[in-house]
């Protein structure tokens, strides 16, 4: 609540993370698996004295460096920056918990870089053993960096530790060795190996390598492919076993997750089938087109798995620590009591700016927020039907408010209603009420929902509902769907948001007929 919300129309800002992440993973996983293949095949070529085979791997190393060192590095920074923009609170928490994990990973990045350049630029110049050693240093450093980042990302899905809970201890190691750590490490290692072999299929079939060299290379990739598949299967099983209960239920419940699960399973099966038919049974027939088909299937598998990974974490960004809408789990109750708008630095600033128009509006300041929340919670906030009773309490805030007549942020009774004898009441016009509702929507809901159009747009999902129904739905946000964060506003804010949603909600489509008349019911 202390950071501005980054509004990305239609797409929503977290989807920017997803796009960058999928692109990055396609290259970074190759950087790990490819490093292992380069070291292994270089050693094999040296051992067998096959200079042609070694020459091919030099050309592959060039392709590898151009892709991983440049594109992989920049998109890696891209993920880091994008999560900071779209999920600043979660990023802040992750960095606080894992700063030295990231610092250690950086050391391995530098090792990777020096080893990769030494390995490629000094290919025929270094003594053979030294050259081979550099290849293995690269492979080890790349895999360790995978292990380190997996310790961090797996914590986001399951914050329970293998040896004790981070929540109770607060220790780095408890967070790092979480229950998802080993399964996800195996899974990602497996994906890296399999993906790297697909890159090799593409590379060798694209160039003008002789048939024997092509066949030999493709045959040599079989063992890493199979090892990758085995690791993936073990990893997926472990991943399922150690999923938090909420995530397990989500696998069954959310239709979109089911679709992506289907895509993941189908594309993985197709990859296995193609590998069986091509590299395993007829390596001489593997063409660039079939390799490209494998690559597109890999994109489908990785893209869907990344989506599943993000989707099943809901309502959290970090399991049991940060909700998707950038609210700390531990603070959601107090935010709700203080008022959602008041509790955020920037939403609070929005209220402050409203003071220009409504000079009598009072708002919280950090110094009196406690007093404000006490005041707010001690004053009942009756919620009536729309246009009904006075709504209390977004504002009443400074310490002196206890002794002063209550001044509300908004007065829900419609235009023209007069309250003789209670001149302290303040009227916020309908336009500003909608604007406030939109502020609440963007800061509370836009993490997962576009407004009218776009990714998981909220408005079309509310067609046919009345304002009362929407208010009731909002106030119990995580009951019908536990994958939603709890409502973090007060009753007034629920009405404001409901009114905004009503204003953008599309009408019932004209072709929908057959209205149920209550009289027809038995």
């Amino acid at each position: 609540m202390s950071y501005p919300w980054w509004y990305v129309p239609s797409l929503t800002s977290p989807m920017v993370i997803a796009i960058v992440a999928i692109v990055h993973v396609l290259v970074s996983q190759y950087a790990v698996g490819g490093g292992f293949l380069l070291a292994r095949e270089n050693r094999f070529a040296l051992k067998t004295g096959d200079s042609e085979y070694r020459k091919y791997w030099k050309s592959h190393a060039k392709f590898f460096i151009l892709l991983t060192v440049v594109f992989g590095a920049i998109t890696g920074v891209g993920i880091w920056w994008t999560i900071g923009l779209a999920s600043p609170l979660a990023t802040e928490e992750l960095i606080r918990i894992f700063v030295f994990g990231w610092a250690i990973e950086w050391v391995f990045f530098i090792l990777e870089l020096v080893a990769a350049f030494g390995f490629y630029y000094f290919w025929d110049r270094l003594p053979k053993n030294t050259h081979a050693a550099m290849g293995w240093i690269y492979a080890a450093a790349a895999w360790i960096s995978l292990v380190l980042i997996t310790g961090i990302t797996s914590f986001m899905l399951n914050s329970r530790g293998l040896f004790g809970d981070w929540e109770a201890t607060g220790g780095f190691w408890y967070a790092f060795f979480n229950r998802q750590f080993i399964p996800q490490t195996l899974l990602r290692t497996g994906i890296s190996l399999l993906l790297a072999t697909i890159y090799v299929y593409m590379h060798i079939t694209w160039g003008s390598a002789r048939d024997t060299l092509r066949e030999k290379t493709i045959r040599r990739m079989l063992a890493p492919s199979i090892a990758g598949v085995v690791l993936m299967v073990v990893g997926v099983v472990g991943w399922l076993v150690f999923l938090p209960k909420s995530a397990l239920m989500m696998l069954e419940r959310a239709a979109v997750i089911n679709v992506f699960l289907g895509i993941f399973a189908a594309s993985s099966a197709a990859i296995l089938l193609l590998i069986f038919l091509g590299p395993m049974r007829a390596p001489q027939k593997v063409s660039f087109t079939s390799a490209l088909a494998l690559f597109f299937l890999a994109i489908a598998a990785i893209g869907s798995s990344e989506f599943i990974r993000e989707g099943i974490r809901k309502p959290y960004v970090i399991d049991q620590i940060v909700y998707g809408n950038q609210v700390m789990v531990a603070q959601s109750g107090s935010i709700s009591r203080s008022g959602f708008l008041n509790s955020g630095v920037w939403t609070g600033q929005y209220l402050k700016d409203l003071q220009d128009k409504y000079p009598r509006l009072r708002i919280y300041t950090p110094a009196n927020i406690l007093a404000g929340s006490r005041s707010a919670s001690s004053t009942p906030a009756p919620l009536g039907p729309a246009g009904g009773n006075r709504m209390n309490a977004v504002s009443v805030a400074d310490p002196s408010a206890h002794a002063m007549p209550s001044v509300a942020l908004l007065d829900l009774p419609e235009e023209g209603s007069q309250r003789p004898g209670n001149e302290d009441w303040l009227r916020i016009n309908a336009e500003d009420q909608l604007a406030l509702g939109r502020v609440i929507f963007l800061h509370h809901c836009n993490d997962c929902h576009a407004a009218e159009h776009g990714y998981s747009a909220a408005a079309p999902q509310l067609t046919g509902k009345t304002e009362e129904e929407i208010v009731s739905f909002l106030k119990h946000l995580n009951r019908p769907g536990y994958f939603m964060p709890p409502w973090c506003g007060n009753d007034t804010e629920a009405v404001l948001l409901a009114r905004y949603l009503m204003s953008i909600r599309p009408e019932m489509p004209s072709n929908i007929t057959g209205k149920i008349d209550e009289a027809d019911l038995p």
Partner: protein
Amino acid sequence: MPSVDIYSLNGLPAPYWFIQLFKVLGFILHSIPMHLWLAGLPIAIILLLIGGVNGQMFARRLLKQMPVIMALGINLGIVPLLFVQTAYYKVFYPSTILMAWHWLGILALVLPAYYLLYLTSALVDAGRKWLPALSGCGASLLLVAAGLIFASAWTLMASPESWTELWRAKSIAGAATGLGSNWADPVVYLRFVSICGLALLTVTFWLLFDSHFLFVEKRGGAGKARPDFSDFMENPRLPKSRKKELRRLRDAGKLSEEEELEALEYGYDEETEEGDAYQHWALRFASVLVWFGVCISLGSLWFYYYKVLDGPESVTGVHEASMTTAPAAPIDPTTGEPERIVPVWIPPITFAGGALFALTVILGNFGKIQGKFLVVLVGLCEAVTLTFFAITRQIIQNEQIKNYLDIRAIPVQMQLSPLLVFLLVFLFGAALIYWMIYAMVKTVKR
């Protein structure tokens, strides 16, 4: 914006000094390659096009080194950014979110620039001139634009008082569109110009280092005779792509004698005398570059320290022209004057480092100091200048945001065991990197 209550924060995972140390150290390490692509790249392009033999030699060498320099620069930038996010997150995230699309734009600029550098390097390797100049020019423009956005982000981060206005101007229903920018703030350009000045000093150092250490080593010593071959295709030092091109010309009967001779001698044509000539040229060129570097960097820093931060212009001049509003400086109770943002002792040391830098190069040009000893001295001056600049920059940053977020006062929640593991891994990694570089250097020497 109301100031941040530091007791509401989670606490620093390491002591204040440790975070500052690694942030400053990381920035210094990142600065060297960053300076080389910022100032070295345009200089190399100009020299490639209009330079003499030695100028072109330097240009080709630097352009070929550039992809590795770039890779190192990006990776070395991770550490300062990591520690910014560890301690300064309350200023880092809001400022970058307000200008989110610009911030992400850096990556959109750097990615093609990086590939253009590889292309430039390959074209230089192929013996081309105009094409690498063109692609290098494209890379340089992209990197300058990225540098300006960085300067803009760092300026915005250090001026929380300007955020509210920016947010009001570029938000929809209180949510930032990410289209904000502070291009109207002259401090952005001042910051960028000072970095460019320092970058010229780093290029000066690199020129001397390359000519006195890397160049000589690569030639394999003086007087090495060319092996006996009569066909340039047998010359192992001639790049393959060039061989291909020349063979094509020969087959077409268009290869001139001069070109053939040049190809035969390629890589062996420079004996000690030519090596010396390159070093002399490097020294002369360095003594010109250093003046530009010292004047631009120290001039802009002087203006920033004394006119913008601690001068009358801080309120009425520079800041007035911008969207920022300089906060009222607190009064020093001992002097009754506004407190200085820049500690008194910092600017003279920074300026002394720069002046010493210039003096050393000039003495070298007059032959008073010579050879590798001169380069070591220049290297020390470069280290002193960069270190003090990085420290100054850090102190000023802390001072500027102090009223909003007092970093020094944030309590520490020490993560001792991960910190120790990091230090051990750091030492181990440094040893392994040393071994790899040693193996490569030994190979080059051999």
